[in-house]
């Protein structure tokens, strides 16, 4: 989309780092805690250099104790600090899930609104780098099942920067999922560095024939598919969910009611994916506007294999997205 705001070109990684630095300069309550974020420079170099700038109290390297330091983040947040906890990757977050599900997500409600957990948890997610079954999970859609938390999936450089501020301003826990294949992607970061809204989906490509709904790591693939489709005369609208919980159902329904067809693309396993939820929501709110059943393009239901040809086959790809759209266009009224 064209923009008149002045912007600089930067990477997703650098935008995320700038967001952390700006937040730390703005608010002394903000600190970062996680494995190898300091001396090592960050597993994905997001926090590189911040230890020198802010010191080891605020750029706090932790031992390998996911449950311990995520819980410590909850405690510090209860005491009105603004911790940013980095779980190196989503794959290790299972070890902290008790703290997230049973404490972070429940304390406000269980205490009758007395307690607040203004905690931000960042983690790298996703497959595509031949890291095998234990290092390739895409579970952000799964996390979106949990009431009491907000789940964000920045897909653009602007969102990588802009979502952190509002996430920290949120009095409740916010999980930010950063797809590992996005860190090196370049994009436009507005010079003004205004926070972005973290309540709404965004149309990344307007179109009329079909709505493609996605987020995070699969957005580039979906945009590429939309280009291919355009060349074939199909005008696809691309909706970037941005927020996986709570879903921006209005944006989904508004677009689908207009295009009358939809394909949802996400990298999670198909059964029980967030694509299923979106399909169900469309069923419930736009059944009579649909000209064809909603399609889904998800990951194959396998622990992610190492071999490249298998991993490629397991993940949503441009060709599969195009084919799914063509299927949805072929069928129905």
């Amino acid at each position, binding site marked *: 989309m064209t923009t008149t705001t002045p912007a600089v070109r930067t990477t997703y990684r650098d935008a995320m780092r700038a967001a952390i630095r700006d937040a730390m300069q703005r608010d002394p309550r903000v600190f970062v805690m996680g494995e190898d974020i300091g001396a090592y420079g960050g597993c994905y170099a997001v926090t590189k250099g911040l230890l020198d700038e802010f010191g080891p109290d605020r750029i706090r390297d932790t031992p390998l104790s996911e449950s311990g330091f995520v*819980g410590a983040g909850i405690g*510090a947040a209860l005491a009105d600090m603004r911790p940013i906890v980095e779980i190196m990757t989503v794959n290790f977050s299972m070890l902290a899930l008790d703290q997230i599900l049973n404490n972070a997500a429940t304390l406000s409600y269980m205490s009758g*609104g007395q307690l607040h957990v203004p905690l931000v948890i960042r983690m790298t997610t996703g497959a595509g780098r031949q890291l095998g079954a234990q290092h390739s999970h895409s579970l952000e859609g799964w996390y979106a099942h949990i009431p009491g938390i907000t789940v964000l999936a920045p897909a653009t450089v602007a969102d990588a920067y802009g979502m952190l501020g509002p996430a920290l301003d949120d009095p409740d826990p916010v999980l930010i999922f950063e797809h590992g294949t996005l860190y090196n992607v370049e994009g436009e970061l507005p010079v003004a560095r205004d926070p972005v809204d973290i309540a709404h989906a965004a149309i990344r490509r307007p179109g009329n024939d079909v709505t493609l709904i996605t987020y995070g790591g699969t957005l580039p693939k979906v945009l590429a598919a939309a280009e291919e489709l355009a060349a074939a005369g199909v005008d696809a609208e691309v909706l970037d969910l941005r927020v996986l919980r709570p879903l921006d159902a209005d944006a989904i329904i508004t677009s689908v009611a207009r295009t009358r067809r939809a394909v949802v693309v996400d990298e999670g396993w198909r059964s029980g994916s967030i694509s299923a939820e979106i399909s169900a929501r469309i069923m419930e709110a736009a059944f009579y506007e649909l000209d064809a059943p909603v399609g889904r393009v998800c990951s194959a239901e396998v622990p992610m294999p190492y071999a490249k040809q298998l991993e490629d086959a397991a993940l949503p790809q441009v060709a599969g997205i195009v084919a799914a759209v063509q299927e949805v266009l072929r069928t129905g009224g």
Partner: protein
Amino acid sequence: MTVFPDPDHARDLYREMVRIRRFEERCVELYSASRIRGFLHLYIGEEAVAVGAMQSLSADDAVVATYREHGHALARGVPAASILAEMFGKLEGCSRGRGGSMHLFDRSRRFFGGNAIVAGGLPIAVGLALADKLRGEPRVTACFFGEGAVAEGEFHESMNLAALWELPVLFCCENNGYAMGTALGRSESETELTVKAAGYRMPAWSVDGMDVLATESATARAAEGVRAGGGPHFLEFRTYRFRAHSMYDPELYREKSEVEAWKLRDPIAAWRETLVAHDVMDEAAVAATDAEIAQEIDAAVAFADAGTLEPTEDLLRFVHTEPSS
């Protein structure tokens, strides 16, 4: 040797223990009458731990407890009425009726619950203490948990984090010998719990949990160590629960005689005898205390009874913080 405290304080300790005892005895009746529901875990027999330990904490300090936390809430100053209203599921409860017995909260008293996942509160205590350390506040966070929690990974992660970062946490392990039906010797290869603390270079000692003077003075010493910048401390309180684990427990796993033997060490009876022997209380004073407490609890029941049920229209409130709050 512990010095005998000043008489007013000595009587306060007694009163606080009896308050907890009577409160819970009433809870049992109310549970049988189906006024209280869900799980109910009694602290009866362990009162000297919470009461003694709480003496060293000021209003600025923080407390994290478990599902067996009526005693801690009461000793921390959470009103009996608001606790009972909570168990009645009333809006006037300390958690608005959303928490129940296992989830008492009182932010104004820095009482952070009430956690029903064994060892789940420990990392939170570490975080509360980390916040204090980062801000340079000379506060202590006291974290209570049962000896069963020692087998959980979260216990170890929390101990290590607190020790590594020299955080002001007081780890208060209430060793009542059993985790539900599991005796300590059947859950730990090393049953001397202070040895666990040694694995983190954390000062630690075992305390007679049936003696309120011992629990008080040990905690005072530990809290002083923490406040002096000595980092976290670990206290093992050796105690016993006189009642079943919860209202559903058939108590197949321990001998009646064992329970009876421990009851001979009832912390309340023992302390009353000491007070009488020291002429700090007489029969009449004991009766008067009992009567006062009975009145307080009657009032609490009346308050809880008169409380309101939250309208179901409000079901979705507080999943997220409300803009105003």
